[in-house]
């Protein structure tokens, strides 16, 4: 994870995609475990998102290898989230994403990710990448895990293409970051 944080080729690619980086500041005071933080972020994103037809139950699909996902599931329990269903799908089963409202992408190869994301295009699926520190891939949101702190990045292009309406508060945050970059 941390190896990606350094300036890399991916960062250069990310420059093409308009990436609003909601980078998390360094903090030594982070006392909450990463799983809970991820759970909070994901539920926060869901809170700011409006699907064209609001689902009764948010179907959360997890794909790829996740260092934190097990912690995150505990976190979901901890924050007392209601109306969610969590399903793990395999990386190669792109068709399984059809029944997902939300796709949590763990570590995977770039072609695998592209394929998965291509499969969701045209459908309102909120995508969050765990393993994309500059949010240059086509997922809408990316986690920025830095030590014990977890932040969130957004990809405005992906958001605008997704068909899911994101609260302007979030977009404002993103734009602010864009302006700073």
């Amino acid at each position, binding site marked *: 994870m941390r190896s990606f944080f350094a300036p890399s080729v991916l960062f250069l690619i990310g420059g093409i995609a308009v990436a609003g980086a909601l*980078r*998390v500041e360094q903090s030594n005071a982070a006392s909450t475990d990463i799983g809970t933080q991820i759970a909070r972020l994901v539920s926060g994103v869901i809170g700011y998102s409006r699907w064209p037809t609001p689902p009764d139950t948010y179907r959360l699909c997890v794909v790829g290898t996740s260092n934190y996902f097990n912690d995150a599931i505990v976190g979901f329990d901890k924050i007392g989230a209601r109306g969610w269903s969590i399903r793990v799908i395999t990386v190669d089963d792109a068709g399984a994403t059809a029944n997902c409202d939300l796709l949590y992408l763990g570590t995977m190869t770039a072609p695998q990710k592209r394929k998965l994301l291509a499969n969701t295009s045209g459908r309102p699926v909120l995508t969050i990448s765990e393993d994309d520190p500059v949010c240059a891939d086509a997922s809408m949101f990316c986690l920025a895990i830095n030590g014990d702190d977890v*932040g969130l990045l957004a990809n405005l292009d992906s958001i605008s293409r997704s068909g899911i309406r994101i*609260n302007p508060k979030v977009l404002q945050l993103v734009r602010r970051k864009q302006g700073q970059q």
Partner: protein
Amino acid sequence: MNLRSLLDSSHKVPLGLVLHRGNMRMALIALSLAGVSIFFVGLIALRAYMLDNLILSARTVAYGVEAAVVFNDREAVMESMKQMIASRPIASASIFDRDGDELAHWERPETGGWLQFELILAKILLIESATARIQQNGQVVGTVKLYGSGRDLLIYLAISIGCGLTCLVLSGLVASRYSRQASQEIIEHLRHLASVAAIARREQQFQYRVKPTAIAELHELGDDFNALLEELESWQTQILGHNELLAHKANHDPLTGLANRALFESRLDAELLAARASGGRLALFFIDADRFKVINDELGHEAGDSVLCIIARRLRSKIRESDLVARLGGDEFAVLLTPLKDVSQAGRIACNMLESMIEPVELPIGEPLTTSLSIGIAIYPDHAIDAAGLLKKADEAMYQSKRSGRGVFSVAANTTSAVA
């Protein structure tokens, strides 16, 4: 006449000053009461407003930083919070996440000693902090805590003091102006009253009156004063009348109305002095009614009195304005002729007097009767140079006339002339 000079000016305060002080005190008290109450009402209102404002600010911040808190973006939290509160009366602000960890803290940059003062003010008025929960979709994700500064209080205090002082000065000026106006009228009238009183006191002139005025009490005072002056005036007239009457009574014979012996003697002394000074002369007649005792005894006192009155009238009709006829007592009369040119003038007058008695005297009852006079004349300075001497010489001359057959006049030093 100045009012102040009527009073003891070293210990007394002028009316204008008393009124001025009273008005100033009134203005000060009224203004202080109004000012203090308005100040406190304002303070209470301001405090409520500030508390509301602080709570409102906290809610605004909570709403504004919501997304940033949800996404754990400290920089964004700090920035949007700063944007929202920098211009507000807030001393410091903190934002905590749902675990109670501080995400951002902001403090107003120190601006001189005022901030400390503002904080103290805020503390005194119990406007310290306001808290608002940051919520996303009904879920608490953090809290905002704002510490209010007393900036508005400080401004209010400054404006209050400024306005208070300005009002104090203005109302002082107005009060002083009005009190001067009011006191001017009162003082004017009082001075007028004092001047009337002073004229009455110093010159005994009671005919002046106090003018009417629009101020009721002063008008009443003036009326009473005028009534007093009227009374004084009538008293004075009465007393003068009495005095005149008494003086007349003291100097005149009540029966004939002629001067009495006292007046005659004082007149004689005065005329002698004048004659001595001017070197002039004067004549003294001593006159006795002949056979008066017989008339009195035979015809009664009433007839005697009538005779005396007629003699007095006839004697008076023969003298000049500057001369004096007096009744010395009983049937004795005296005449003072002054100025006198020579002895013959006195003789002529004496002749006239004797002639005037030829006509019979009408009595209230009984037959008319004729009476005659015996006249003795003494001339100053020919026969004597003092009153006693003159009286003595005239008296002697009169007896001389009696002896030589009544109805005549004699001049002292044995010179006798007989008439008819």
